[in-house]
């Protein structure tokens, strides 16, 4: 674990009971992530990408080993503490945007701030600023069903970014998007990564995403089989 390491996994196994036996979704994972990384987990379907993100995000506990996120031992956290960690420090982006359909874009983005009890006076400024980052300023009053898929996904990113999380975990964020929207989303995230020093960890098998990655971690059958810096150049682009 280095000085700037904000996530570290140490000999992590994740075992699911299957019938009478056990299924190792993750096997002896040793990984470190530093602040400001733009990393991706790649690998075939079923290789354990989502499982790994869930463990990092304190949604699931490792069966064995140690997972430390921002200095906290995830496997030791109680439900309330891990909820707290998610609320304050982590952001999740999913394949589907999961915006709440009854609320406007503005209100959807407001929800995490309400959960953090951010005072009303600060909320508005934070939301409008975030909408500007993702280029949705003119859509703030719209309901999700009036937006395109790409716009919804950008709103979902805004919902995560509005609370300035230290770590964003994105599980196949472009899987439902066309090429143009995928690039737009990735550029947005890259920009946020550089401007706010937010750490991004993706799970993907989308080539378009892989192009943007700085670090590419390959998973095969629950094991890390490759871990490489792919794009040092792009980091400074």
């Amino acid at each position: 674990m280095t000085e700037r390491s904000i996530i570290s996994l140490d000999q992590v196994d994740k075992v699911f009971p299957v019938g009478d036996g056990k299924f190792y979704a993750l096997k002896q994972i040793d990984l470190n992530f530093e602040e400001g990384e733009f990393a991706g987990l790649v690998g075939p379907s079923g290789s354990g990408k989502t499982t790994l993100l869930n463990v990092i995000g304190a949604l699931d506990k490792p069966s064995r080993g140690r997972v430390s996120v921002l200095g906290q031992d995830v496997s030791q956290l109680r439900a309330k503490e891990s909820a707290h960690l998610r609320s304050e420090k982590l952001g999740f982006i999913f394949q589907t945007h999961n915006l709440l359909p009854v609320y406007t874009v503005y209100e959807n983005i407001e929800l995490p701030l309400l959960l953090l009890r951010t005072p009303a006076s600060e909320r508005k400024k934070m939301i409008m600023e975030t909408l500007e980052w993702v280029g949705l300023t003119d859509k703030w009053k719209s309901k999700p069903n009036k937006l395109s898929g790409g716009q919804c996904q950008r709103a979902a990113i805004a919902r995560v970014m509005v609370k300035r999380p230290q770590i964003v975990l994105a599980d196949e964020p472009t899987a439902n998007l066309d090429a143009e929207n995928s690039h737009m989303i990735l550029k947005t995230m890259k920009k946020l990564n550089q401007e706010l020093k937010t750490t991004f960890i993706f799970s993907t098998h989308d080539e378009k995403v892989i192009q943007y990655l700085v670090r590419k971690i390959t998973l095969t059958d629950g094991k890390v089989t490759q871990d490489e810096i792919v794009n040092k150049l792009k980091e400074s682009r």
Partner: protein
Amino acid sequence: MIYFLCKGLLRDRSRSLIPFLVVTVGVALTVLMEAWISGAVGDIIETNAKFKDGHLKVLSRSYAEQQSQYPLDLSLTDTQHWLQILRQKYPSVNWQMRIYFGGLLDFPDENGETMAQGPVAGTGIDLLSPDSKEKEYFNLNSALVKGTLPQNPGEILVTDQFFERLHLSIGQSATLISVGMDGGMAVHAFKVVGTINFGVTGLDRGAIIADVSDVQEALNMIDATSEIFGYFKAGRFLKQQAMTISQMFNQAYSKPNDPFSPVMQTFLDGDIGQAMGFMDRYLAFILIIFVFIMAIVLWNSGIMNGIRRYGEIGIRLAMGETKNHIYFTMLGEALIVGIIGSILGTMVGLIPAYYLQEVGFDISSMMGSTTSSILISTIMRAQINSMTFWIGFIPGVLATGVGTLMAGIAIYQRQTAELFKELEI
């Protein structure tokens, strides 16, 4: 946050409007049903209390034992004394003497020879005291078919059937031939001033109504009466109060070893009253089933609503809300819908219930008679009582709440990560 959730609640029709309507309709039906059943039960009580059992009645212990035979010789004496005690001690009840008797009514012609005669069942009630409520209890004004109600001593009413069968005329004099309280023969002259319908075949064949003082005089009942009837001034049978009053009275005045001491009975001691206990339970059972069905419907809509929102639950967990918090906010939403729906449903249900209470539902055409009668009321009525106001909240609030509670348990049963799977679709 609460404001935020309310906004969502208001905007999502399937979350608010539909459950709200279901609750409102369900509660309204429950409320109406309860009022209607209470009305039906109340009706049966009042009809029977009116003529036979009273809400309360006082009679001599020995008369009470052979009540079905109307044993006049066992009548209660010192009536004025007892009436005074009753009226003073239990002012929430109207106390009146009544005498049931039998006899032969003989109608002489102008020469004093018998023109017609027939057996009659007689009822002596207080017709002439200005504060007597008996005319109202007996519904005499609308049961009157011909002539007028008695205004003076010596005037009687006969049933219309009897009147027609014997070809009588209004103003006709009649002689009652009967057995007095002392066992001797009693003969008394009356004047027929009007005819009435009882609505009961047996009685309509031959019955008379006379003023109770006249009857006392005719049957040699000096300060005696077969029964003293009590009716709650509230207009309906009050079970708890009736039992307390009768207990108090009996403890104070009824002596088990003195057959002529008075005893007070409640409506529940009568035949119908005893059957009522069963009937009451039966109706309560119907009501419980109804409430139960409503509860299941509302509970289901609570569950459906919960399931529909798994996606939302997932995303809120991801944002760092705790399961408890999500659970409580959902429960809160359900309770808001349940409470408002129940309040509105109760109000909605009370409107037809009130109409059915005040106006009633006329079944006379179904019964084939157009004149109202003393015993059978042709108007079915609902009765709004204290229970009417809260019964709807059982299915309304409880069921909605429990439904959501059950739906919510699914949140706990599932692993957090599994709830997230819902988000990967």
